């Protein structure tokens, strides 16, 4: 699972530059939470496109995570990228005053989708494409909001596990406060990914790597020394979240159907 930071940086910065260039864009926009993934993506984007071509949107909800906002702001200064702070508090509060709930997941999903809608608005205003920041761990277990933080134009980091993102971040020189931060979706105070998922990323990533990359079966992974309950739960998360990794199925009626047999490359004639 070990990665070579220099090599991965080269591949991903080239990908960002070429993919945007193909579609006639020179600028990228991303949501910057102050966490590891978006921080790492911001560094890659700055190196790929030049800091002046990267716009980071900092989109806090109330006073939820002041340290993260501070980390995001200082990373913006460090990289010399552009940034804008857009509070999502008013629209989220207005919505939930009409449809109240204590369900943190509902609230978190709504916030993620507010941020998404702002990102898409800025992407059109700025003629910039949205850089996704979901990593492979999140994509595989479905730890993300569909049409929320998972929405993007291109995703440079979707094939790196969380622990690999951390390795890359260290290579890229992401500041310590971000690098060593407990990962959190920021859905409620004190929330951590590992607490919510019930497993440390170090273990989760190894299990996923064995499952996805090495195609090992659940019994084979248990035989490597993981608890059966934990492996079973991870397998369930992967199974249950397939819908988040796919476009919705289209009922095939005609002789040629979008997604079934009307098939062209994403990078068509680009």
């Amino acid at each position, binding site marked *: 699972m070990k990665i070579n930071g220099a090599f991965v940086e080269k591949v991903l910065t080239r990908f960002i530059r070429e993919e945007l260039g193909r579609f006639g864009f020179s600028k990228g926009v991303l949501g910057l939470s102050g966490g590891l993934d978006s921080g790492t993506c911001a560094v890659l984007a700055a190196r790929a496109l030049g800091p002046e071509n990267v716009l980071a949107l900092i989109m806090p909800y109330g006073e939820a995570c002041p340290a993260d906002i501070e980390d995001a702001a200082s990373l913006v200064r460090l990289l010399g990228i552009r940034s804008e702070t857009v509070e999502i508090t008013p629209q989220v509060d207005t919505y939930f005053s009409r449809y109240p709930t204590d369900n943190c997941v509902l609230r978190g999903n709504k916030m993620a989708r507010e941020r998404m809608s702002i990102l898409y608005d800025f992407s059109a205003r700025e003629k910039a494409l949205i850089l996704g920041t979901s990593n492979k761990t999140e994509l595989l277990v479905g730890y993300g909001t569909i049409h929320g933080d998972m929405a993007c134009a291109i995703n440079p980091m979707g094939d790196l596990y969380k622990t690999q993102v951390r390795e890359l971040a260290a290579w890229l020189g992401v500041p310590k406060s971000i690098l060593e931060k407990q990962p959190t979706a920021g859905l409620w105070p004190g929330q951590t990914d590992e607490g919510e998922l019930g497993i440390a990323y170090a273990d989760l990533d190894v299990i996923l790597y064995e499952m996805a990359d090495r195609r090992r079966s659940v019994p084979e992974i248990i035989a490597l020394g993981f608890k059966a309950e934990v492996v079973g739960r991870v397998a369930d998360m992967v199974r249950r979240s397939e819908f988040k990794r796919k476009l919705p199925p289209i009922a*095939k009626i005609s002789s040629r159907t979008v*997604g079934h047999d009307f098939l062209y490359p994403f990078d068509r004639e680009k």
Partner: protein
Amino acid sequence: MKTHLVQMAPRLGDVRANLDRHLEALEHAREEKAELVVFPELSLTGYTLKDLVSDVAVNPARSPLFKKLCDAGRGMSVVVGFVEEKEDERGLFYNSSAFLAESRIAHIHRKVYLPTFGMFEEAKIFAPGRNVLPFRAPFGKAGMMICRDFLHYGASYLLFAGGAEVFIVVSAAPGRGVSGDDGFETSRMWGLMGEAVAHFSTAFVLYCNRVGSEDGAIFAGGSFVFDPEGTLLARAPEVDEAVLVCDLDLGLVRDVRKRWTFKRDERPEIVLHSLERIVRDYED
């Protein structure tokens, strides 16, 4: 011979649930005194398997699943579709159909023609079979084809030349194209081939297609039976689950072959020599 074509919708990737459905259908068939029960292509696994293929594969020689099917089907002939991983070819997966009779596996056909174009990606997950062979069934000589095999008329010819009197075609054919008719346009293609093959092979053609949908693909159903004169004996509805019941008068093969001598007059050796020449003279 009372025949059941089970036009079912398997649950994708759930072999246990599908086995239960098979056992129920076999129990029902027994009550109804059926002698031949046909399940569609990949009836034990579902069709759109992608990377699930290795998870659902079985070696029928050692599989407890086949033991259960053989037990449940005793006294009857049963055709089931499954993913096969052979003892001596581990890591290769075949789209196979097994013919069970007298509580054992009498024959396995491995799909030869794997559609891989447009919406189909079978060659990405399956190894191709290499044979289309008739076999001895309790009711006479039979042969099996799986879905696309049937659309390559050479496959039917091999069964015809080999002496099969009952062609069993199992399918997981999605419907494609609509016009004004109350069915998919592609259903016409299957019926056309069914009628022609039955008539010119002077053999029964049983076509058992599945229904249900997987990832947006909608399996068309429309299972049918043609007799050796090319007359439609029975046809199941499009899209809906159904058991198509049909009584086959196997003596009809003899009657028709007396009148239509296609089988007697066939010259496989001429076909063989001509094919050898054609293949030898392939240009690079």
